[in-house]
């Protein structure tokens, strides 16, 4: 019987694994192979010169790599922290508001998540427009600046702008995950805490947050992963600019591929990104696994 079930399982799993194999595993391996060759304008690696790790050397020595690395890390830390706090606030709000508003609030919160990143980018480009962008005029109206700031042209401001645009959608995502976790906090425990004399802040700090710790950790994991890989917003909002100040690992690697058309070096870039992201995730997963209660 077990033999038979194993066979069936194999049959059921095969199609999915074939799809993954063709479009995920094979390409990863192939990219790794590209990275070992001197490929420009072409991907025919069998006819190209084998250069071993020379591409990697070039990449790691380049200023742009470290720039994009630094920006990616900075971006990830800032964006994830910000969106987590905002997302937690929104998630808690959905449980706190009076019943009729709950559905409306949830619908509002879910909306930013559904909007494709690159469309958002266009949206934000208009909002950040230095002549008639809404945000510029708001800044002036609030007394934060004399003229609408150059959100996308000024290097420092551009960093902030990209982060803001990303967080707008990210807070929504974090909120959704956290809402799920909060829903699992049993009401009777909160009732007991109320009877025990705990006010709202104490209930949040001592009961709610500790109980959703697994959800928090998983949320942070997913959001960090997403932030490290970010591409759409950057491509659509600033194209990595001004210059390369807002280039992330993914966006700069893409330039290597399709702007500079250097497949070898681009692949090295991509593999480095891949190792970084995967490595960090594995480390993170190992670190948080003891805190997760598996059913």
């Amino acid at each position: 019987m077990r033999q038979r079930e194993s066979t069936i399982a194999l049959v059921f799993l095969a199609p999915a694994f074939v799809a993954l194999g063709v479009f995920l595993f094979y390409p990863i391996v192939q990219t790794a192979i590209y990275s070992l060759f001197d490929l420009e304008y072409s991907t025919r690696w069998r006819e190209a010169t084998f250069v071993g790790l020379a591409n990697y050397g070039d990449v790691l020595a380049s200023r742009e790599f470290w720039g994009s690395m630094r920006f990616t890390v900075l971006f990830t830390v800032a964006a994830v922290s910000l969106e987590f706090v905002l997302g937690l606030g929104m998630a808690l709000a959905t449980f706190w508001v009076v019943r009729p508003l709950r559905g409306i609030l949830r619908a509002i919160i879910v909306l930013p998540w559904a909007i494709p990143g690159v469309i958002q980018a266009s949206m934000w480009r208009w909002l950040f427009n230095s002549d008639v962008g809404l945000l510029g005029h708001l800044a002036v109206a609030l007394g934060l600046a004399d003229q609408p700031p150059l959100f996308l042209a000024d290097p420092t401001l551009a960093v902030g702008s990209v982060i803001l645009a990303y967080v707008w959608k990210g807070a929504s995502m974090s909120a959704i995950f956290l809402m799920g976790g909060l829903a699992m906090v049993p009401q009777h425990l909160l009732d007991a805490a109320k009877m025990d004399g705990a006010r709202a802040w104490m209930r949040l700090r001592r009961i709610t947050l500790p109980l959703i710790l697994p959800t928090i950790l998983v949320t942070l994991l997913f959001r960090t992963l997403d932030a490290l890989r970010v591409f759409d917003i950057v491509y659509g909002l600033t194209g990595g600019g001004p210059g390369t100040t807002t280039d992330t690992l993914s966006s700069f690697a893409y330039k290597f591929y399709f702007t500079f058309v250097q497949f070898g070096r681009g692949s090295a870039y991509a593999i480095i990104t891949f190792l970084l992201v995967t490595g960090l995730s594995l480390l993170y997963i190992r670190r948080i696994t003891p805190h997760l209660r598996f059913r």
Partner: protein
Amino acid sequence: MAQVAVQQISKRFGSVTAVDELTWTFDDGGLTVLVGPSGCGKTTLLRMIAGLEEPSGGQVWFGDLDVTAVPPWERNAAMVFQSYALYPHMTVFANMAFPLQARKLKKDAIRRQVERTAQALGIDHLLRRKPRELSGGQMQRVALGRAMVRQPDVYLMDEPLSNLDAQLRVEMRGEIKRLQRALGVTTIYVTHDQAEAMTMADTLVVLRDGRIEQAGDPELIYRQPATAFVAGFIGSPMINFIDVRLDETGAAWMLGDLRGALPARLPAAAAGTAGQPLVLGIRPEDVVVSREAIPDSLPARAVVREPLGKEALLLLAADALPAGSLLRAITPPDLRPAPDETVWLHFPPARIHLFDPTTNRALQSTIGSPR
């Protein structure tokens, strides 16, 4: 010490009225049990007293203070939940320390008080454990301990024993009763188990559809139920209800050929007009079963006999009764009628209850019924 009272208190959920303008003052220092079938509003009432539900109307009083708008964390009431509601991520010690931390007591004071309470309940050896490592009975005690540790004015208990197995439940009943006596704190206890209610209550409040059906001393309620509902709900095995009529004289009831005297405590005029239908109630333990014919008795056959050790439960069918309806009678263990044997059932007048079939109220003077 606070005397808890509710005044015209109501709770509506949409079109459903869970509690309907209920007024009651609870025994100061005594154990009052709220009992009734599911949906009668007992838990809702308890939660309103706790502050976990906001009343749709009416007030809650702790002593002279109107606490209706006061949030639960400011009322000095402690609650024991059916699920125990122990914080799973904290140790037993931390669970019990939590209410004291909410009151911002100092660490040493907290430790002393927790240890003292834990010792009193016999759980001091469990202080380092987490709730998932405890048995049902142990969790129960921790829940009690958490309620006791800060010496509240009122204890509220929401079916705390429902999740325990039968034997443990009986044991804990006695323990809670003893504890309550020793502490002398007003306690309001909710249960759907009428046996539990009877054994534990100083005062019993029977609820139905959001209203008080009858309230007062448990034994009095048992002996003199004010309505057919109370008579049927309180007492196990359940009371027998028989449709009878008043005879021509108006001074006796009749069932088939059987004539029975009215109870002495019932004024003759109160019974009603001749031929009027009534509902007669008689508890199984009050039915006299005889193997020989006796005066004023009904012939019947034992259909089922359930031996209960110290006594037996007989299910009896009689020609005078509608087909399929059976009477319950408790008999001494040595009475074993044969399946076809005719036995004779006598209903002592002092033990019968008569109810008006339309209002379901008892005809004898109503005791303890507030409406």
